[in-house]
């Protein structure tokens, strides 16, 4: 084959290939396989996209969750995506051609005007409020940017609804607020979810719980017991009460003031009023409950004390009536006439009354021995106190049941002395002194001496009067002690000894 033929064949093959390419190009255009063409123009090659080529951009803008607009420099809406119309609650068609500023809240309109002025120089972004068609407001972040379109100056506006963001901020702030309240509360407060699991608790509650308790069931974190009648005093279990109360609260009921006590742990034995109410969500649904434990331990202690005191009072009143009856009978038996009966009986009743005064002053708790002696002996002190009555001894507090007998003993000794002893003259002296033999014993011995001196010469009475009988009886039976009367010539000496019982007898002061 000649070179010429080969050259022609080569050119033919090349032409054939170019023809195939051209045919394929045409076929592809005809079949819609391409959507852009390169066109050679006076300014070089240019790409022309065919119909539908802009679809992805259009969809991107139409489907985005932000409002997207193109506006003229004076704020006229040239284009808006559907989303922005939805945000405002208006028809899209009604939006184009209007002033965008009319949809701003009045306070933000001047700011928007300023944004339009400066946007040509670069993007600006502000937080503003828009007014919906129904006059409600929504907060939004608006960003404005220059957007040159074919030489026409325009502005692009992106509107982001930040209602959720704002709400989240509010919730966070509310959470912080709640947390700070919980931390400041002195009462234990516990927040539970619907299942009774602890989600939050005050510092006081944290200290009360046996262990870290977030996520733990209320009944497990706090070992509560109740002594309700329906549980026959055996103490309903912690989990039961907690579960029951949480269920009630989550159902929307407010449970008030169930008395419980804490079992075990360092805070064991503390008494609380257990109250619970529903924790409501924004739509008023109970999403958990709030439990308050009010410490009523001091109140319970006070109630117990009051109960004991009432029983004590009842007992004392009966005893006192018996004592008064006995005194009346004995005084009557030892009186020669009505006048002497009246005087002796009045004195003894007075001693009882003084003893009661001392008890009242101490709130029926304890009475101070020295105060008691001072009170009983006060009538025998002269106004100018020329007669020396000395009362001396360490502080001793005496329980109520010892106060009356002791005051009667002091009264009898004083009456006797005023009639026949040291207190019957201006020179006589009386010393009431006591010592307490503590010595580490559980029941220290109190030794009290009543010593008279410088009075008239003492003569032992021929028969024991009621006074002496009362002293002997009282010390022996009521105080379970010993008494010794020594009728010395220069004055009577009476020595009393009785054991101080810490629990229910006289106890050391302080």
């Amino acid at each position, binding site marked *: 084959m000649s070179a010429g033929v080969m050259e022609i064949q080569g050119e033919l093959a090349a032409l054939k290939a170019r023809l195939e390419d051209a045919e394929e190009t045409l076929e592809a255009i005809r079949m819609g396989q391409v959507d852009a063409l390169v066109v050679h123009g006076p300014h070089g090659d240019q*790409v022309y996209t065919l119909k*539908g080529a802009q679809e992805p951009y259009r969809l991107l803008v139409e489907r985005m969750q932000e409002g997207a607009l193109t506006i003229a420099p004076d704020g006229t809406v040239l284009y808006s995506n559907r989303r922005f119309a939805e945000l405002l609650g208006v028809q899209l068609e009604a939006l184009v051609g209007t002033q965008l500023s009319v949809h701003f809240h009045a306070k933000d309109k001047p700011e928007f005007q300023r944004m339009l002025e400066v946007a040509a120089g670069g993007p600006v972004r502000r937080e503003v409020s828009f007014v919906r068609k129904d006059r409600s407001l929504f907060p939004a972040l608006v960003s404005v940017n220059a957007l040159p379109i074919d030489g026409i100056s325009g502005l692009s506006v992106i509107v982001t609804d930040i209602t959720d963001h704002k709400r989240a901020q509010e919730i966070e702030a509310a959470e912080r607020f709640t947390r700070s309240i919980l931390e400041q509360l002195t009462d234990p407060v516990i927040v539970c979810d619907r299942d009774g699991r602890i989600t939050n608790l005050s510092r006081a509650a944290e200290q009360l719980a046996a262990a870290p308790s977030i996520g733990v069931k209320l009944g497990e974190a706090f070992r509560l017991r109740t002594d309700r009648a329906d549980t026959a005093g055996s103490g309903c279990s912690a989990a039961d009460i907690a579960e029951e109360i949480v269920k009630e609260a989550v159902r929307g009921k407010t449970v008030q003031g169930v008395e419980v006590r804490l079992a075990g742990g360092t805070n064991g034995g503390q008494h609380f009023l257990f109250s619970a109410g529903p924790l409501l969500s924004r739509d008023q649904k109970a999403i958990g409950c709030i439990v308050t434990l009010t410490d009523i331990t001091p109140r319970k202690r006070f109630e117990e004390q009051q109960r004991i005191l009432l029983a004590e009072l009842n007992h004392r009143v009966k005893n006192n009536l018996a004592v008064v009856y006995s005194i009346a009978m004995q005084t009557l038996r030892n009186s020669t006439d009505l006048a002497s009966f009246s005087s002796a009986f009045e004195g003894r009743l007075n001693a009882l009354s003084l003893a009661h005064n001392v008890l009242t002053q101490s709130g029926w708790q304890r009475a101070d021995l020295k105060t008691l002696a001072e009170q009983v002996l006060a009538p025998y002190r002269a106004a100018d106190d020329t007669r020396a009555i000395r009362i001396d001894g360490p502080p001793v507090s005496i329980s109520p049941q010892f106060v009356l007998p002791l005051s009667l003993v002091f009264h009898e000794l004083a009456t006797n002395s005023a009639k026949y002893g040291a207190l019957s003259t201006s020179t006589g002296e009386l010393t009431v002194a006591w010592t307490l033999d503590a010595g580490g014993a559980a029941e220290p011995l109190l030794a009290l001496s009543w010593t008279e001196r410088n009075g008239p010469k003492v003569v032992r009475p021929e028969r024991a009067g009621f006074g002496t009988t009362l002293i002997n009886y009282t010390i022996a039976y009521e105080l379970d002690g010993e008494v010794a009367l020594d009728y010395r010539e220069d004055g009577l000496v009476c020595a009393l000894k009785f054991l101080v019982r810490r629990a229910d007898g006289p106890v050391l002061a302080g």
Partner: protein
Amino acid sequence: MQLAGSPKGDVMYNNSAGNDHYNLKLYIAGQTPKSIAAIANLKRLCEQHLAGRYNVEVVDLVENPRLAQNDQIVAIPTLIRKLPEPVRRIIGDLSNTERVLVGLELNHLIDQEQAR
């Protein structure tokens, strides 16, 4: 054109070289639907049939229309097979796999593709 996974510029895939190595060039026009479809179809085909022996350069003519002259591009998208020679061109979004395999002279793979 910058694409995810491509460390530099226009090279989309570059999986080694060899005697039967395929050197391909895809001309697109921004994000037109056919351009996006062509990229996706080409990637799938290459991974299925030419794994480890191809590289693809994507040329966006919207960014630089003058590059159309190099391969006398008229319609977009267009795929050019530079290597192995001879140069072949396939026009369209490469959705017709059979046609693309013929165009790339990978006819023997058609049955395999149809079996899928």
